[in-house]
């Protein structure tokens, strides 16, 4: 329970900045945490994911960054910026206005917000949310006031600057105003090979007739532990498209909650994961249809190699007495090794009759006929597997609405597959 006990020393240090946080809610969060403890594998939604790492490493809460940033931080920031995007930079959970570049006429940023938004997520994960409450010191409120001509990249950087392992607790709320459109990339990246734990809370309010396309790109250090909660509250006639990309982190846990609060909402919840070594990625989704005539489509794909593990649990809730709901869910897993593990679980809670709700899950190896086809075109077996793997995941990327992001993430995917698979290529026979 080191991570909870760190709070007392953190309190002494952080109270030097008393204006930045709601200390009453932090004390309350600590009491709840002490009372409930962290989730264990006895709890249903944590059955396949262990929090043992929290007791094995002493993660210290991140505090404000020095005024003068080391060059290594600056070069990491510039290497992770996507050309052609507006960028808001956060370092270890703290907003860095000096590194950010965006148009103030379209994006409004307010620090230290206390705006409450409630979501019906996973009750077993409440203590993870309390942990974020405990240690976030720089909650941010972002408003998209006008259509964004370019995507907005929210760059969440982690850098230890030579120090101890950190727990990073970003917290932000984004509002896309009525009838406005925004493409947003949450880039979750960090210092090469550094050990840290990021536990972010990202909430989005998508107002009536607004359109949000959100890419949650997790490409952390291979020694990092990455948790995030993404809550999206969508109002009538809005469009929500969510892309979750998992390329790197030792352990990843996503909790996505989409509240469909009005009628005629179109939503797509898509995921693409490339998991290797002994990486573990757990995606929990909760799609809550509260009003009728809404559409939700989920497609989660994972490409697994070595001894990687993937968990997908997709809950679809359809409220009583609502009509014309159309919900589809698909989880597809492509296995490159016989030592990988996949846990896939659809949970459909349907309380209405006028409903279309489908779900499916597949697991399989790469087809020899597909590999042969590419080989017969002069492509080596290893490159063929790389291309087929990229193709499998790239189907998700190619659904992005922005050509710039499509190109950027297709390339990122291929690079990741190319560099990781160079020395160890095999197919399950």
């Amino acid at each position, binding site marked *: 329970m080191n991570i909870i006990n760190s709070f007392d020393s953190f309190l002494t240090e952080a109270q030097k900045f008393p204006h930045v946080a709601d200390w009453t809610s932090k004390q309350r969060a600590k009491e709840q945490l002490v009372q409930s403890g962290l989730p264990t594998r006895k709890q249903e939604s944590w059955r396949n994911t262990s929090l043992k790492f929290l007791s094995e490493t002493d993660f210290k809460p991140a505090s404000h960054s020095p005024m003068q940033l080391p060059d290594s931080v600056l070069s990491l920031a510039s290497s992770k910026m996507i050309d052609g995007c507006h960028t808001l930079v956060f370092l270890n959970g703290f907003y860095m206005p000096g590194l950010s570049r965006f148009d103030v006429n379209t994006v409004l940023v307010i620090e230290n917000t206390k705006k409450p938004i409630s979501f019906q997520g996973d009750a077993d994960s409440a203590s993870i949310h309390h942990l974020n409450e405990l240690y976030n010191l720089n909650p941010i409120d972002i408003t998209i006031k006008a259509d964004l001509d370019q995507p907005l990249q929210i760059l969440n950087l982690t850098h230890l600057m030579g120090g101890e392992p950190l727990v990073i607790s970003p917290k932000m709320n984004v509002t896309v105003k009525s009838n406005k459109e925004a493409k947003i990339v949450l880039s979750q990246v960090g210092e090469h090979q550094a050990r840290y734990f990021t536990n972010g809370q990202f909430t989005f309010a998508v107002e009536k007739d607004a359109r949000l396309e959100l890419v949650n790109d997790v490409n952390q250090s291979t020694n990092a532990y990455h948790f995030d909660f993404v809550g999206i509250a969508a109002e009538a006639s809005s469009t929500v498209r969510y892309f979750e990309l998992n390329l790197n982190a030792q352990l990843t846990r996503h909790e996505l909650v989409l509240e469909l609060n009005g009628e005629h909402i179109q939503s797509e919840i898509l995921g693409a994961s490339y998991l290797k070594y002994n990486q573990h990625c757990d995606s929990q989704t909760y799609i809550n249809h509260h009003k009728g005539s809404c559409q939700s489509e989920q497609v989660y794909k994972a490409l697994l190699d070595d001894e990687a593990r993937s968990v997908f649990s997709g809950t679809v809730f359809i409220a009583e007495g609502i009509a014309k709901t159309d919900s589809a869910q698909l989880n597809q897993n492509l296995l490159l090794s016989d030592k990988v593990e996949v846990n896939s679980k659809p949970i459909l809670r349907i309380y209405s009759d006028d409903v279309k709700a489908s779900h499916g899950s597949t697991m399989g190896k790469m087809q020899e006929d597909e590999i*042969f086809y590419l*080989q*017969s*075109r002069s*492509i*080596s077996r290893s490159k063929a597997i790389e291309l*087929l793997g*990229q*193709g499998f995941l790239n189907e998700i990327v190619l659904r992005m609405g922005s050509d710039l992001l499509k190109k950027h993430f297709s390339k990122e995917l291929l690079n990741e597959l190319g560099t990781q698979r160079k020395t160890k290529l095999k197919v399950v026979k």
Partner: protein
Amino acid sequence: MLEIKNLKAEVDGKEILKGLNLRVNAGEVHAIMGPNGSGKSSLSKVIAGHPSYSVTGGEILYDINFQPKNIADMDPDERAKEGIFLAFQYPVEVPGVTNFNFLMTSFNSILEHQGSEPLTEDEFRKYLDKKMDIISLRPDFLERGVNSGFSGGEKKKNEILQMAVLAPRLSILDETDSGLDIDALKVVSEGVNKIKSKNNAIVLITHYQRLLDYIKPDFIHVLYQGRIVKTGGPELALELEKNGYDGFLQ
């Protein structure tokens, strides 16, 4: 260019090719005909190196650096790099990999094998533009997934485009005419005729005489029960069309 001697091959323990002989020289067009299950598609896959087939006897001699070499143990991509091309009867769909990326990766693999520098995206686009004239495909074709959502005709046209781009020495077209309407058959055949030269050879595998009205063969072989039982000129196809395989083989 290709000399197959007493080739025996099996799949899943079942012998499919039972002592097959075939000789193909540069500049020639050969047609291999035969009833269902005679081993025509298997022959094409064995030449291209499909891993499900094992060669249990004989040789597949193919000229590499002007010397005949038994290629039976070579990987499929190594054979392709030496200029062997198989146009598939059922081309595989690879959604998520664009045709452009696929063609460029494929073409550059050959260049690298030949010790040349791979082409950049811009250079390859210029090269491809010329080849695109050989066969008509939708304008958005290059940015779409390989064969993904393509009609049967488009898939076959894509095979011919790949053949044009990779410029193989030996092309084996496995039932390229199947599933094509008359117009598409004409487009595909014209494409093949444009690629045909005195330096390359083409082996057509087909059930029907129809394809041979458009691509004129020099030799026709009848494959039956894993062996070539008869070889002749173009007139042999007409005879087969008239009497059927049953009549011919009795």
